[in-house]
């Protein structure tokens, strides 16, 4: 546990020692704000909720989360510091979890800093804050899903650009796996039950119901299981390829 916390603290502090943290948070706040006001018609909808704000989160995460996750392992492998880390008395699972949690908490901080929009909507009207809280939770879980995918892919390469692009594509597939764009491709050569299973993996379907205020245990456990599976894969990849 102590090891996990030490790794987590080191990683998290690392974001704030480089411009990464500030650039990420600025861009995230700027984009989430402008998207909900201009594309989401925040005012014109004349509804006291944050639907216009949360709708764009999957698309923001699609680009911004891989930008954070790409360096998690690729950089360690490139600089050789992975040799240092993995010869300290830490287990692979402590390292994988510590790094993932640091990155996830970091996106959580960025997400938390969007609170002015919550204040705005409360000032303008009388929204259901329970729904908003649920949507924040859903958004945070979804960011974790993206992050777990990105972390695992980052461990497969020592090149951050490759990690970024592969993560983006994989996240995109997960995001849209309930939509014809992805399903038509699988429909051609896979039996229907498998296609249905792929369709049920969609981030968007699970997130949109949370966003609407329906907190279904199935949607929550979907993200939890997704994160666990990708982190488990991450551990396998680190064990197998740390020196390659």
């Amino acid at each position, binding site marked *: 546990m102590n*090891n996990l916390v*030490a790794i987590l603290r*080191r990683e998290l502090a690392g974001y704030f020692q480089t411009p990464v943290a500030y650039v990420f948070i600025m861009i995230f706040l700027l984009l989430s704000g402008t998207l909900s006001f201009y594309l989401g018609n925040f005012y014109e909808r004349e509804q006291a909720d944050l639907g216009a704000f949360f709708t764009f989160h999957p698309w923001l995460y699609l680009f911004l989360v891989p930008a954070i996750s790409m360096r998690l392992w690729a950089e360690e492998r490139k*600089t050789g510091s992975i*040799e240092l880390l993995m010869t*300290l008395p*830490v287990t692979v699972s402590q390292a994988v979890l510590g790094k993932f949690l640091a990155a996830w908490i970091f996106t959580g901080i960025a997400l938390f800093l969007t609170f002015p929009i919550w204040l705005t909507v409360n000032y303008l009207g009388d929204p259901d804050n329970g729904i908003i809280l649920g949507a924040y939770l859903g958004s945070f879980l979804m960011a974790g899903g993206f992050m777990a995918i990105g972390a695992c892919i980052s461990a497969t390469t020592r090149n951050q650009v490759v990690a970024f692009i592969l993560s983006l594509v994989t996240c995109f597939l997960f995001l849209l796996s309930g939509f014809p764009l992805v399903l038509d491709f699988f429909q051609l050569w896979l039996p229907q039950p498998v296609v249905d299973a792929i369709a049920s993996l969609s981030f968007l379907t699970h997130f949109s119901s949370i966003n609407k205020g329906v907190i279904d245990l199935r949607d929550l456990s979907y993200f939890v299981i997704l994160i666990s599976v990708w982190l488990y894969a991450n551990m396998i990849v680190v064990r197998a390829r740390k020196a390659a």
Partner: protein
Amino acid sequence: MSGSVVVENLVKVYGDLHAVDDLSFEVGSGEVLGFLGPNGAGKSTTMKIITGFLPPTSGRVTVCGHPVETQPEAAKRCLGYLPEGAPAYSEMTPWQFLNFVADIRRPKDRRGRLDWVIGQLGLEPVLHRPVDTLSKGYRRRVGLAQSMLHDPRVLIMDEPTDGLDPNQKRQVRDFINEMAKDKTIIISTHILEEVEAICTRAIIVSAGKVLVDETPEELRRRSRYCNAVTVQAELTESVRAALGELEDVAVVEPERNQGLTLIPRPGCTLENAVRDVLLRHNLKEVPLHIQAGRLDDVFHTLTHNVHE
């Protein structure tokens, strides 16, 4: 009583390359083992396996009684490791970096140990500057500091003086010598003078196999220059001829500036015979230099054939 580091029949195969090929050795407390070999001989791979970074294809490594494969954390706790190139987290300062390592290593007297390594390695001036702005020498010292923060019983260092200037090299060597008394130290190096300066034992590996395992003195005795006599003076033709005709001389090599070196037949000494010849030619004052043997020559002879 077995050693602190025991390596048994270690094999590491990458594809069809045998990087480490049935390597076995033991190192005990108080020993400084120099691990020598040409590039690609398997030195770094062996060190990575001992430190638990790489799993071996087959064979066993035990550190302080803990098998590295089955008790990796216990083994890692009692060893310190300086990986090749001394990697560190570049955005951190040495102070943050050492504190991170201390968070995980949890040495007993944390503050005392931190002060000690920082003092010993002279890190105060750069303690709060990011590692990626430091010179190579300082980075190496940060790596060394990290490896001995927890006062480990076993220290493994992959080319600890690589890229340092002569003064820094000397500092690091003095430091290792000082630590050597109650520790087990394994260093890999290309620099043969380093072996003479700090190692109590040397293993030469090539193509993943142990070629020799002996003390630096024994190693030097293998050299054809062992007991060779160098005459440092300008010599007339007749003297040269007389020296060359000595029974026990195998080869005569001219020196670069003046004089010559006489290499004896194996097991022979030349000193007295050479003095006699010089006396006969009224060259009493000519200085003679008896060589102890050259490690680079031994290294070359041993590792050359394997690569041909």
